[in-house]
Every structure is written in C-alpha cells, then in structure tokens.
C-alpha cells in the first residue's frame, strides 16, 4: 500500500492532534500541559507545510508555518512563565490543585 504525501500528512496531523489532546486530558503537570500544547501545534504545522507542498506553494506554506511557529513559541513561553509563577505563588505544578475557581 502506498500512501500519497497528503494522506501521510493527514495521518500525522491526526496522530499529533490526538497525542496533544491526550496530553491535555491526562496531563497533571502544568509544564506537561504546555508540552501537550506544543504537540498540538506541531500537528497543525505539519498540516500547513504539507498543504503548501501539495498545492505547489511551498514557500507560502512555509511562510504560514513560520508565523505559526513564532506565535506559538510566544504562547509556550508565556505558558511556561505562568507555570513558573504559579509554582512560586501557589507552590505546586499540579493542575489538580489548580481548581480553586469552580462552580
């Protein structure tokens, strides 16, 4: 069975999105939640690049991907900073403990 590049990319996107979501659902550690977010975005990035390549617009796909990488790195950095700050102020990285706001 041979798969076209697009199919492979779609498989990869689904796999990475799934892994990322599993991380969001099962992760306990704040930092690990940020890791899961990164995985999610890797999936989306893969999709963008593959789409560009399939449509013969590699550079366009690349430029979109760069924008996403920049934006997402910023988000990751802020997530990490929030995590560090939470560790400092709340004293834990456990997401389970981080549920004072509810109801």
């Amino acid at each position, binding site marked *: 069975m041979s*798969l*076209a*590049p697009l*199919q*492979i*990319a*779609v*498989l*990869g996107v*689904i*796999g*990475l*999105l*799934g*892994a*990322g*979501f*599993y991380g969001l*659902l*099962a*992760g*306990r*550690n704040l*930092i*690990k939640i940020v*890791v*899961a977010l990164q*995985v999610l975005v*890797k999936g989306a*990035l*893969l999709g963008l*690049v593959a789409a*560009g*390549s*399939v*449509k*013969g617009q*590699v*550079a*366009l*796909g*690349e*430029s*979109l*991907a*760069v*924008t996403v*990488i*920049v934006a997402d*790195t*910023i988000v990751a*950095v*802020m997530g*990490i*900073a929030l995590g*560090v700050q939470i*560790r400092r*102020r709340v*004293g834990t*990285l456990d997401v389970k403990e981080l549920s004072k706001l509810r109801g």
Partner: protein
Amino acid sequence: MTVLLLVALAVVFAFLAIRARRLITSALWLAGVSALCALVFSLYGARQVAVIELSVGAGLVTVLFVFAISVAGDEPLAGRPVLPRPLSAGLVLLWMLVLGGMLLPGLPIPPAVPPDRAGLAEVLWGPRGLDALLQVVVIFAGVLGLLGLLAESGAPLDGAVAREVAAGRERDLQALTEQLQDGEAVPE
C-alpha cells in the same frame, strides 16, 4: 515511505512526551518530535522552515523548558489522574477515528504540482507582509506579557494605599515562603 516512517515516529515520540514521568524526559521527547517534524518538512521541500523549526522548536523551546524545570522543580505528582484514563483515551481515540474517518477515505489525490520557485523570505516579506508585521506585534505583546508575569513586586509604589498593598504583599510572600520551606522540609 521515509516520510511515513518519520511521521509515525513523530507521533510515537509525541505520545512518549505525553507519557513520560519526568518533565525533563518529556521536554526531550518533545524536542525529538520537533526534530522529526523538521525532517519531514525538509522532505516536503520546505527546507527553510525546517531549519527554523529545528532551531526554535527543538532548540529554543527545549532550552526554555529545561530552564523552567530547573526553576520550578521536577517532582513527579502522586495520585490518580483527574479524568479516568480509559475515558481520556476513549475520547481521544473516538475523536481521532471520527477525524480520520471523515478525512482519509474521501481525500482526493491531488495531481503533482510543480513547486514554485519563490523563497520563504520573498513570500513572507512580500505577499504575506501583513502576517510578518503582525508577528512583530505578537512578539512585542509576548515580551510585555513575559515582563509583566515575571516582574517582582519591587515596583515603586506611591501613597498610603500603595504602601498598604505592598505591606500586604510582603506578608503574603513571607507566609508563602515559610509554607514552602515547611513543605520542603517534610519529605526529607
């Protein structure tokens, strides 16, 4: 075929990053995912973004994670997960099946299109100039946010109210540090 293998490996690495017990391992697996993605990108012809992904995703972000872990500590968390594991796995699997079921069967196999000759820089600063400008905004906002988040409460304050606020903060901080010291003392 190589692409398929690499993608599959990236997904496996991603799951390992999620499953890893130690944060540091998790960060390293993530770097692996990033590197594999970069490889896949370059196989898709996107060489420049591959380089960027490698340096930013596998490099910079990993360094940040390691830094954060060194600051925040890396104790494994005891106790049961918030969601029952089968439920998380079931939901995710179901979602992957739905998405896959929607996408894979009906996906048209597109005709090979000759790749364009434009380079990343030309596109990014030419047709997608607005995106590039907005990236600057995002970075600016991010830096401001980071400064705000990591700022210590040492900023100059004014007036009676502010002094009160500062005093309250000091008290909180002290209580917190004491608490933390106590908390850290117990396991040893």
